[in-house]
């Protein structure tokens, strides 16, 4: 069992990293031939960095758009972020003080994450417009994350797991020195679904994570009158035309 999980996580990690890297390379290779920032847009690169940071951290566009979706969506993501930070302690031998302190708040992030996800799921089921655009995978993602969160809560507050052993297992993974994993049911579920999530991420809508940063509508500087902006394929096209009809 331990070996299966060790193998699973090694595979999941590789799929996640290779899959995401391939996608990021693809996104950066495809040219963006014309300036299409949604205006008003920043006039400098620094301004673009601020625009993207606000979208990433605060979900500004979503806030303007729909307060309920923003509330639940933002709650879920911030909680997820805190939860992920908290999990770092499984991968660092001597946990640094900030992480130790975070743990006190972090315990409750699992609950807020669950609430956020539940809100999003309810919206998806009961708002006709959102229901209309949902395919099965959209519900499954929310359910998957809720089960991960729930199994985490169970381990933390109801049927405790041997955390020290888990830490040995995860540290062992990093060192390619496989250790035994406790085999209680909530932990098995929790870890299995996390691995599933890691493996599916590069093939799914969770590609919104790199996608946000590659959206030309948000990451371009508004300076088309000052600078020309020619994609390689467009330059080739120009060259061909000039050859065809010399001026």
């Amino acid at each position, binding site marked *: 069992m331990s070996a299966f999980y060790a193998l699973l996580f090694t595979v999941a990690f590789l799929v996640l990293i290779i899959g995401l890297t391939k996608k990021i390379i693809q996104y950066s290779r495809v040219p963006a031939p*014309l300036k299409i920032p*949604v205006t008003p847009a920043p006039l400098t690169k620094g301004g673009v960095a601020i625009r993207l940071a606000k979208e990433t951290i605060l979900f500004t566009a*979503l806030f303007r758009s729909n307060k309920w979706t923003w509330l639940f969506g933002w709650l879920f993501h911030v909680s997820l972020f805190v939860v992920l930070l908290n999990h770092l302690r499984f991968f660092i031998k001597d946990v640094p003080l900030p992480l130790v302190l975070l743990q006190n708040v972090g315990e409750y992030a699992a609950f807020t994450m669950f609430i956020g996800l539940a809100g999003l799921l309810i919206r998806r089921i009961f708002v006709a417009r959102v229901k209309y655009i949902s395919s099965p995978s959209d519900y499954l993602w929310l359910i998957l994350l809720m089960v991960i969160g729930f199994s985490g809560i169970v381990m933390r507050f109801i049927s405790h797991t041997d955390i020290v052993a888990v830490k040995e297992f995860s540290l062992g993974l990093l060192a390619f020195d496989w250790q035994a994993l406790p085999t209680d049911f909530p932990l098995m579920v929790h870890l299995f679904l996390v691995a599933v999530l890691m493996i599916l991420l590069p093939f799914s809508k969770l590609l919104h994570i790199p996608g946000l940063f590659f959206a030309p509508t948000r990451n371009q500087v508004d300076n088309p009158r000052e600078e020309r902006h020619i994609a390689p394929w467009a330059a080739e*096209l120009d060259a061909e035309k000039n050859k065809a009809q010399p001026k």
Partner: protein
Amino acid sequence: MADFETPKFREYPVVPQIKEGEMAGDGPFVSRAEFDTDLGYPGELPEDWKEKTLDKMGDLLGRYRSLQVFMDSCIKCGACTDKCHYFIGTNDPKNMPVSRQDLMRKVYRRYFTFAGKYFPKLVGAVDLTEDVLDEWYNYYHQCSECRRCSVFCPMGIDTAEVTMAAREILANVGKAQKYSNQIIQKVYKIGNNLGLPGPALEGILEDLEEEVEEDTGVPVKYNMDKEGCDALLMTPSADFFAEPHIDGLIGYGKVLHELGITWTVSSEASEAANFGLFIGSYDNIQRVSMRIREAAIKLKVKRIIFGECGHAWRVAYSFLNTLAGPFDFLDQNYPIPQHILEVTYGALQEGKLRMNKEENDHLTMTFHDSCNIARASRMGDYPGGQFDIPRAVIQAACNNFVDMDSDTIKDATFCCGGGGGLLTDDLMELRIKGALPRMEALKQVTEESGVTNIAAICAICKSQFTKTLPYYGFEMDAIMSVHQLVSEAIVMTGSEQEKDLDGTDEEEAES
């Protein structure tokens, strides 16, 4: 009127119920081969349409980062679902921006992603069939490429980019739209969208000169093909004859005359509009743009100034330098290209224009931000100048100005309902229904603040308003050009208006 019902004003803007299939149908007239071949399209459905469609899709995915990223990054959050004026006006769920994208995304997933190849049901992927293509044709011609949805999308997904790609793919398998392609062909053959030949244009401009001189006593010039002027004026051809467009053109002439800027239009490039944008064709946008460069060189001008037109300004501001540059032969002291409003606004700031606002005292104005100017370009030297400059010019020409509801202006503006290549009679139902949110906002300020008229800076908006206003119980001529207001208020040096004003002062002083 027509065989559909004009939507009722809603009590208050509640989110619409969905009504599936409400706008199902065949879409606008399909183009004919004679228009297509000039533009580089086959003009009929080829036998291997399926491969051709997928090939073209793959090609575009490899050329446009926007398309590739947007196909992947939609999170189905639903934030955009109530933002499109066509959904609000028609209730058809396929007019929700995300569903519009999904028409293509479902095919993308099926043929270009792992999940869709092996688990199509799970992720909602579908096979490409002729029915799918027909549905694309119908619903990708119910999008005015206005970008309102992209403002509200947390991922910055711009449905207009998807629509343009879809239209380009459709055109490559013989399903181009007649209206747009016929117009582009006219631009290539005759020089403008309306097919106005040079001599007709010259006659119109001569009449204008006479009319303005009669009104003001000032010999304002409206030149065509005159070499060596300061500026080439690029304006939508509707400005040459349609109401209220032409009153705007009269206004540009007066302003430029007063500032001592000589200018000309070109008979070969007598059209600022660039429908290449609407059909999503880089090639055709470029070909249409090159006319401007060639005209500027031929007429030996130093500046290029654009008249009031929304998507033309997008192409001019955002793409012209890239597509037809570098413009190193023009005077670098002026923005290239420059918007007529930037010229007028700058002159007002410097106190170079005398305005008699009382001429417009019978009006209470509001302003309709055109989508392509609001969300796809800029005026002036800071972000958002495109909102402030037209308003400042209106307020310099008219004492009474009221903005519409803040959710319906500036970068949240609602499309007039006729943009993006949809300003055709065969789409009248869609155009009237899509105008609903704008008409509601207008209704509100007419009732609450006594607004009488609405000004716009886009030829398409102006034409669309003259059609939609009567359907919603407004006067057809409530729509005005911004430079029409300027034209009424401006007091040119040596004009009758100047004599009247200064004369009246003296008389008052005497009595």
